[in-house]
C-alpha cells in the first residue's frame, strides 16, 4: 500500500519526473504521426497503383505483341470463372509526344497505351481520375463541348484545390477559338508572303485558283482527330504554390510519333486531339502514360492482319474479386501461357522494388524514431538515479519501519510504470490529435518557418494522407511503457540494495 502512496506522492512532488513523461509523450506522438503519414502515403499510393494496373497482367514479351486477344480472353474467362471482375486487352508502344505551345513545341517521351473504352474501366480505376464528369461515367474519345473540372474532383473540399481556370473553356469552345486563331494567322502569313520569292506550291496554287480542292480539307473548328487522354503531368506542370499551368488542354491537338510494327520499323507520326486529362496522383503514370483508342492504335501501328482482321495486342489486364488471391491466379495463368512469349505478373510483382523500398523505409524510420523513446529511457534512468540518491534517507526510514527490499524496489518500478503509462497515454492522445489535424499542423508549421512542408509541386495530393494502424499504435505504446519500466529497473534495484543504517546516516 505504501508503494502506491509514495509512488503517487513522488509523482506529484517531483516535477523533474514530468520531463520523463514529456519525453515519452513526444516520442510516442512522433512515432504515431510518422507511422500514420507513412502508412497513409503508402496506402494511398498502393490503392491508386493497384487501381490503375489491375490485379494481374499478362504481357507479350514481343514489342509487336501477340495475336488474337479475344480467344485468349475467352480462355481466361473460362479458366477463372466468377473470380474475374474485368478483363481488357491493351496495346502499348513507346512514343514521342509533341505539344505546340506559344513559345515553340515541347516533345516528351511517353508510353502510348491503346485501350478499349468499353472494358478498360472494368479493370482500372483510371476512369475515376478523368477530368470530365461524363468521361468518368463512361469514357469515349470524343471531345466534349465543355464542362471539364475546374476544381480537382478528388479533393475533399473545393477550398483545398487551386482552381484551374484554364480548364474553364477546354473542349470544343477552345478548339473553335484556336482554329479561328490559326486561320487568322494563316491569312496574315499569306499576306506577308505574297512576294514571288516566297510563293507557295505552284501546282496547289493553280488548283486553288481553278476552284478545285484535293479531297476535302480537314476543318479543325468542327472536326477532331483521334482522341487521346493525356496524363496530367504531360499536359501541365505545378508551381510551388500548388497552381497548375497547362501547355495543352482538351480541345487542342498534339502530334505523336511511334514506330510501326514493320521490320525495320518506320516512325509513324499522327495528330491526336486531346479529349481529356487524367490525374491519378502517381507521377509514374501521370507524366508518362497517354491513352488512345485501342483499334485506332492497332491500325496505325500495323498490328491488324489485313486479310483476317485479327489484331495483335501487347497485354491483357485482369481485375479479380477482392477475396481472390492474385498470386494463385498468376501461377495458374503461368501454366496456361508460355513463358517464352508471355510474362504473367501481379501488380505487386511489377512494382516490387518500389514497394520493398517503402517497406524498408518504414522499418528504418521506425527504428530511428524508437531511438527517441530509448533516449527518453536514458533520461528516466538518470532522473531515477537522482531521485534514489535524493530519497536515500527515506528509503532507510522505510526499511527501519520494516519495508522489504522488494517493497522499496516496487516503489520505483511502479513509479517507472506510471511514468510510462502516463507518457504513453499522453503521447497517444497528442499523436492522434496531430494525425487528425495534420493538414492544419502542416499549414501552421509552414507559416511559422516560412517553408512549405508539403510541397504541392512534388506531390499530387492536396492534403497529407494518414492511416492509423491500431496494432502499430498498441506496439508503440507497449514499447514505450516497456522502455520506461526497463530503465527504472537499475535505479530501483540500487534503491532496494541500500543498507538501512547507511541510508539513515545519509545527510
Amino acid at each position, binding site marked *: *500500500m*505504501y508503494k*502506491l*502512496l*509514495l509512488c503517487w*506522492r*513522488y509523482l506529484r*512532488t517531483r516535477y523533474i519526473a514530468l520531463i520523463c513523461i514529456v519525453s515519452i509523450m513526444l516520442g510516442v506522438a512522433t512515432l504515431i504521426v510518422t507511422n500514420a503519414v507513412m502508412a497513409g502515403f503508402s496506402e494511398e499510393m498502393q490503392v491508386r497503383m493497384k487501381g490503375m494496373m489491375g490485379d494481374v497482367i499478362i504481357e507479350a514479351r514481343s514489342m509487336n505483341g501477340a495475336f488474337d486477344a479475344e480467344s485468349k480472353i475467352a480462355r481466361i474467362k473460362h479458366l477463372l470463372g466468377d473470380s474475374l471482375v474485368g478483363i481488357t486487352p491493351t496495346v502499348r508502344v513507346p512514343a514521342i509526344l509533341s505539344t505546340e505551345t506559344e513559345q515553340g513545341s515541347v516533345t516528351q517521351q511517353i508510353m502510348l497505351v491503346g485501350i478499349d473504352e468499353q472494358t478498360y474501366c472494368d479493370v482500372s480505376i483510371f476512369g475515376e481520375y478523368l477530368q470530365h464528369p461524363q468521361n468518368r461515367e463512361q469514357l469515349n474519345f470524343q471531345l466534349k463541348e465543355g464542362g471539364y473540372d475546374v476544381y480537382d474532383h478528388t479533393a475533399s473540399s473545393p477550398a483545398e484545390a487551386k482552381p484551374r481556370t484554364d480548364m474553364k473553356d477546354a473542349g470544343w469552345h477552345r478548339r473553335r477559338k484556336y482554329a479561328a486563331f490559326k486561320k487568322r494567322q494563316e491569312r496574315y502569313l499569306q499576306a506577308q508572303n505574297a512576294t514571288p520569292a516566297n510563293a507557295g506550291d505552284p501546282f496547289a496554287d493553280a488548283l486553288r485558283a481553278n476552284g478545285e480542292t484535293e479531297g476535302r480539307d480537314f476543318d479543325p473548328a468542327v472536326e477532331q482527330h483521334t482522341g487521346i487522354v493525356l496524363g496530367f503531368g504531360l499536359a501541365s506542370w505545378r508551381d510551388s504554390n500548388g497552381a497548375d499551368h497547362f501547355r495543352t488542354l482538351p480541345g487542342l491537338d498534339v502530334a505523336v510519333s511511334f514506330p510501326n510494327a514493320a521490320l525495320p520499323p518506320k516512325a509513324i507520326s499522327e495528330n491526336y486531339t486531346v479529349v481529356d486529362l487524367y490525374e491519378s496522383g502517381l507521377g509514374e503514370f501521370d507524366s508518362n502514360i497517354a491513352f488512345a483508342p485501342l483499334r485506332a492504335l492497332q491500325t496505325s501501328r500495323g498490328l491488324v492482319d489485313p486479310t483476317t482482321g485479327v489484331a495483335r495486342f501487347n497485354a491483357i489486364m485482369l481485375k479479380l474479386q477482392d477475396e481472390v488471391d492474385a498470386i494463385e491466379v498468376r501461377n495458374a495463368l503461368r501454366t496456361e501461357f508460355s513463358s517464352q512469349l508471355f510474362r504473367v505478373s501481379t501488380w505487386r510483382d511489377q512494382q516490387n522494388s518500389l514497394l520493398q523500398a517503402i517497406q524498408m523505409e518504414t522499418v528504418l524510420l521506425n527504428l530511428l524514431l524508437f531511438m527517441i523513446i530509448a533516449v527518453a529511457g536514458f533520461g528516466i534512468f538518470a532522473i531515477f538515479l537522482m531521485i534514489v540518491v535524493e530519497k536515500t*534517507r*527515506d528509503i*532507510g*526510514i*522505510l*526499511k*527501519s*519501519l*520494516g*519495508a*522489504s*527490499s522488494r*517493497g522499496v524496489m516496487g516503489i520505483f518500478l511502479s513509479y517507472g510504470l506510471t511514468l510510462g503509462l502516463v507518457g504513453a497515454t499522453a503521447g497517444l492522445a497528442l499523436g492522434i490529435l496531430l494525425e487528425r489535424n495534420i493538414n492544419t499542423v502542416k499549414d501552421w508549421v509552414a507559416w511559422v518557418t516560412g517553408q512549405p512542408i508539403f510541397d504541392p509541386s512534388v506531390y499530387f495530393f492536396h492534403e497529407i494522407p494518414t492511416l492509423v494502424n491500431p496494432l502499430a499504435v498498441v506496439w508503440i505504446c507497449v514499447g514505450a511503457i516497456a522502455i520506461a519500466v526497463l530503465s527504472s529497473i537499475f535505479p530501483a534495484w540500487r534503491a532496494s540494495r541500500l*543498507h*538501512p*543504517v547507511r541510508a*539513515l546516516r545519509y545527510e
Partner: protein
Amino acid sequence: MSNLQTAPWTSPAPVAQPTPLKLHAKEQLAAHDLFKSYQKGSLGIPVLQGINMSVYEGEFLSIVGQSGCGKSTLLHLLGTLDQPDAGEVHFDGHRIDNLPARSRDVLRNRYFGMIFQFYHLLPELTTLQNVLAPALIAESTFGYWRRRGDYQRRAMELLELVGLSERAKHKPSELSGGEMQRAAIARALLLEPKVLLADEPTGNLDRATGEQIMAVLRELNREQKLTIVMVTHDGWISQQADREVRLVEGRIVAA
C-alpha cells in the same frame, strides 16, 4: 561459577551482567558476544568488541557513552537494522540476528518501534500518514483499505497521547523538532511493539523539549509497561532511565 572461568583471558569479552531491578522480569532482548567493525578503506575499524547485555521486559534501559563509542551501532544490531560480524542477538529467547531478511523486516515492523535523533519522518506524507506508515507497510493494499478505519482511529489516539491531534494534517516541515519527535514516537507505537528502541531521542532538541519527550517515554514505560532501550550521550537524560549501561570504545564498562 569459579573465578578461573570468569577470568578476563578465558572469557571472550568482558561481561556486564548487572543485577536487574525487576528480578521477576524475564529477559526480552539480549546480546551475546557481539562484534562489529566498519570497513574504512582497507582498514577495519572495530566498533563493538564483545558486547554482552540483557534487556528485561518492561524496563527502561539507557545505553550511555561518548560519540563514536558504538552505542548507535549496538542499537541497530538489537533492532536488526544491521547484522553483527560475530555474536548473537536474542529476542524472547529466539535468535534473531541470522533470520532471513523477510523475517527481520517483520520484526522491525511489528515487534520493534524505533525513534531517531533526526526524527526521520517521510517529508511527502502528513503527520497522520507518517504515523500510519508501519500499517501501510504491514498490510496489502486491500488489507489496509479494509481495516483503514481501525488504523486511523489508533493513529489518532496515539497522536492524542503525544499531544499532536491538531497537527495530524500537517506536513513534517510544518512541525517543530519536539513535535516531529512526538510524531515519530506515535509512529513507533502504531502496531503495539514489544520494544521501543530510541537513538538519541533528545539529541537534537533543547533541554525543555527534550524533557517533554523524556516525560512521554517515562509515561509509556510506566503506564503501558513498554520496554524501552534508549541510547544517549547525555548523562542527565540517561539518569532518568531505570538502569544505565555505559559503553566505552565498544565495551560495556559499568552498570
